[in-house]
């Protein structure tokens, strides 16, 4: 099953502690993903349908999130590939799926939306490990056009909080000459569909991060002795873990539905489901990963411990394409004014 494949790759390519991030063979992990066909899930088959469903992509995203795997699966294999496929740039999408080149997306300074260029604003290439270029949009009379921007010039590494993803920053300007159009203009609906998928896989990544963090904390309570007993036997510790578990599971329920909705519901419903999932995941991500650090006690506060790597990844994911505040405002627009 897809889940097992993802878990296997995560097992070999995920860090057990932060120092592993310096030594892990990221290239090998990427090759494994390519060989398993997981980079191709959002390319299209001969009937023009995605090779893998939203559910399948979310399963992989959750698995890699659980492993804190430091490869740009979301950036390249989902967000960029889907954008290319929607624009009808199928050859480019296929090329990415082979794993030899990587492309990611450019986001606005607040990470909440795809960058619209040209312009002189600050933009970030998020999840850009090994990416030669990144996709953005231009606004045109026929809708938005996907464009490719090389990361070779004007971009510098940013000290992002997430230790498992590469973040590059450009303080602009990026002029029209640096934009290479790819595929055909996107309909408004296609962009919304892309957003639904993107929000969903980010939520799935957070779910993976949270579930794995809670599992690690629970395992620790079965080893760590204080006052002559395992700390997991303290009701206070049990309830901390139970509350974190409930929140992580609740996020999983919302994300599973959003993942199903990506391909099965009309775009407005799919997007609402995705916003719901992102709201839930973003809302609890901070508290759940903080609880995990708390359960680990002193050791969980140290840099060399894995706990904060979960926190950092979850906190950054929380911002990407809009945190819970952004999502709630949009959900309210749908619910209260039918926008």
């Amino acid at each position: 099953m897809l889940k097992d494949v993802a878990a296997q790759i995560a097992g070999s390519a995920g860090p057990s502690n932060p120092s592993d991030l310096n030594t892990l063979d990221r290239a090998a992990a990427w090759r494994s993903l390519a060989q398993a066909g997981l980079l191709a899930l959002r390319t299209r088959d001969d009937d023009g349908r995605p090779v893998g469903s939203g559910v399948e992509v979310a399963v992989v995203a959750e698995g890699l999130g659980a492993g804190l795997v430091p490869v740009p699966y979301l950036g390249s294999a989902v967000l960029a590939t889907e954008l290319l496929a929607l624009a009808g740039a199928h050859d480019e999408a296929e090329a990415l799926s082979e794993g030899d080149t990587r492309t990611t997306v450019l986001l606005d300074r607040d990470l909440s939306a795809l960058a619209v260029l040209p312009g002189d604003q600050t933009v970030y290439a998020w999840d850009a490990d090994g990416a030669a270029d990144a996709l953005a949009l231009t606004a045109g009379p026929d809708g938005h056009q996907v464009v490719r921007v090389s990361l070779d010039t004007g971009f510098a590494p940013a000290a992002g909080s997430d230790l498992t993803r590469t973040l590059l920053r450009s303080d602009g300007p990026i002029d029209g000459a640096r934009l290479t159009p790819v595929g055909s203009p996107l309909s408004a609906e296609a962009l919304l569909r892309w957003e639904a998928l993107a929000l969903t896989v980010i939520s799935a990544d957070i779910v993976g991060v949270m579930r794995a963090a809670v599992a690690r904390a629970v395992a620790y309570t079965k080893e760590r002795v204080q006052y002559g007993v395992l700390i997991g036997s303290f009701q206070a510790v049990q309830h901390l873990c139970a509350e974190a578990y409930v929140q992580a599971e609740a996020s999983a329920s919302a994300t599973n539905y959003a993942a199903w909705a990506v391909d099965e519901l009309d775009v407005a419903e799919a997007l609402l489901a995705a916003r719901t999932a992102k709201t839930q995941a973003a809302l609890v991500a901070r508290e759940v990963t903080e609880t995990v650090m708390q359960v680990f006690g002193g050791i969980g506060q140290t840099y060399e411990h894995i706990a904060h790597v979960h926190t950092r990844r979850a906190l950054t994911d929380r911002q990407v394409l809009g945190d819970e505040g952004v999502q709630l405002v949009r959900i309210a627009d749908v619910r209260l004014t039918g926008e």
Partner: protein
Amino acid sequence: MDYRDTPEEAEFRATLREWLTATIPAGWDKIEDEEESVRLRKDWHRTLYRAGYVGMSWPVEYGGRGLSPVYDAILNEESGNLGAPPLPSVGYIGRAIFMYASEEQKRRFLPPLLSGEASWCQGFSEPEAGSDLASLRTAARLDGDHYVVNGQKMWTSGGQYADWCLLLARTDPDVPKHKGISAFLVSMTEPGVTVRPIVIASGEAETAEVFWDDVRIPVEQRLGAPGEGWRIAMTTVAYERGPADIGFIANYRRTLRKVEGLAAERGLLEKEEVRKALARAYVRGEVLRLNCMEQLSMRVSGRAPGPEGSVAKLLWADAEQSLQHLAMDILGADEMTGVAAGWLSSYFTSRPVSVYGGSAQIQKNIIARMLDMPR
């Protein structure tokens, strides 16, 4: 899992909707008189039964239709959506009976349970045995071919109106507490049964105490073997109604719409803070709904209800109580001055959601057990 109805389910849903729309008694929810309201609920049970909507997931041999629990879920959902009267709860009593009863007991008790001729209550909790059910003290002493029951039960919902009771009592005080309990099927009209309504903080009689004074129960009304009561109770509790089974989710949605309406009336929809809070409430309801659907899907695939139910119960309490907090914050003083007294009542009704049926603390203990945390 697939969240969409199968063609059969969709057809069932459509037929059901049509039937409900035509059949729901107009103005039933305006009834203030408690007795009249109970009568209406009993009538509604019989009406549902005649239309084939009660016990759909029961085995055919016990009067059910052998359908997937999905059909019960659809019934719950549509009843909530269309504002039907509360559904009868036959599932958990039925489960206990068809898992543990003799053939004769099944023939005697199941048909009227299904049809609504006989309504049931559950005599489990006691004043001194709330969360810690196994320490119950109500005693059933064997006297010839009868048991003689003495004791007091508490939180016996519907005790005032029930015809029958699934009663737990201690038949053997000399063995460890979980092993000395037996279960009984008792008529509430037996001499010595006294019911006293319990009024909750909202001012409404939500449940009851039942006093058992020398109540004589024929031996053949014991359910299961002597000492099997604890196992029967655990089965019953496992099948007790979660948020999905009582139309809670559909009710939640309707309540949320009302709260949105309150905010609109008060001109608060321009406030981003209020908009976000309302959206947050929507998300809570969705998360609960989706969690319940996943559990239902597991049940459909044959898994007995497990400790995952505790996740839903915690989410349920949080959703219900948070929504009442939000309503209170929107209504402000009006909820306290009697202008919106109904909302104050709803608020107090939301509080025991984290107490009854296993407190929030007990649910977290259960989850810790499920996570295999040390005892």
